[in-house]
């Protein structure tokens, strides 16, 4: 039975690997908004898609370049702007979640070194399946701050 259980284990491993593969999240357009050089907190944004068939939950985030990373959502309720910490973020199967200015964002607290446009931030998203997803986010200025005037038509 030893051989049998070993092969069962191998089968389990290959199935698990296949599942892990299928359940991977894809992150695109990750960026961190450049702030004043002395700023204590920055915000990171990205589109996170889940092409798999199972919901995946982001249960935490961290970055070697920051003391703390939290997931927050900015809400404007009855004229008050507030940020609500999100202990977890579900990326639905076959769906995607957009982290963008004025909504969901990664709050990056206390940079170890000042960051400027062109720098890269490594963000590790911890998933509920025990794996980690590494995201590379480039620091750049807010596109809305550019010379373009067509800037405010993507609110929700």
């Amino acid at each position, binding site marked *: 039975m030893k051989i049998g259980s070993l092969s069962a284990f191998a089968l389990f491993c290959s199935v698990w690997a296949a599942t892990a593969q299928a359940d991977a999240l894809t992150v695109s357009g990750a960026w961190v*908004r450049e702030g004043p050089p002395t700023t204590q907190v920055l915000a990171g944004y990205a589109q996170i898609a889940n092409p798999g068939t199972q919901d995946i939950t982001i249960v935490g985030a961290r970055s070697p370049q920051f003391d703390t990373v939290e997931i927050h959502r*900015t809400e404007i309720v009855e004229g008050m702007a507030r940020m609500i910490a999100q202990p977890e973020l579900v990326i639905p199967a076959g769906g995607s979640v957009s982290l963008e200015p004025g909504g969901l964002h990664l709050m990056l607290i206390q940079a170890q070194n000042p960051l400027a446009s062109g720098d890269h931030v490594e963000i590790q998203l911890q998933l509920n399946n025990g794996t980690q997803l590494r995201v590379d986010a480039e620091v750049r200025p807010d596109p*809305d701050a550019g010379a373009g005037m067509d800037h*405010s038509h993507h609110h929700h």
Partner: protein
Amino acid sequence: MHNSPKYSCDGKGLTLWLVAIAALIGGVLAANQLLQPPAAPVLSQSTTRLVPARVLQAFELIDHTGAAFNLERLRGHWSFLFFGYTHCPDICPTTLNTLNVLARTIATLPEPASTPQYLFVSVDPERDTPELLAKFVPYFNPTFIGVTGTTSAIDMLTKQLSIMHMKIESDRPDNYLVDHSAALLLIDPQGNLHALMSPPFDTDRMTQDFQKLTAYYEAIQ
């Protein structure tokens, strides 16, 4: 037979009468037009004009250069006021960037609408020193002015403006959040609260509203 050429209704006399009456009617209409106050501006849904404008009481704050910032500094020009804090990563930089676009658009308007001042008033005076504001606010636009002060002085101003702010305690004493009113306020050159603009901010619409408000203000002075 009595004949009075003075009041005769022959062709010439009738014409004179008609001309006189027409002139009278025309004059009344013209006077009416001149005396009629200009129509109140029709604004977008996100802009609210206060009627009457709210008169503000004196306050003593400080700007990011360390200079006194009081009611006097709101007089003589239009001012946009936005409330926030430097430890705010998302909505405050987003709004300051929007204000920068707004400022550039407004700068292309004819005088006097083209020269308002833009103020970022801290709702976190505990952490937001003038020095910290000096490194934060002008980053978004070098003409923007950061304003802070003692907690009671900030409250003195925000209460008058119906701006709410609330410190949200957290387990990290240095990194608490502050909920705050998201509106942008407009102060007129008399230093009165004149209008408020609510998010989501559309700078084209805001520019149009600002132009209408300033034109109307000039017309009724």
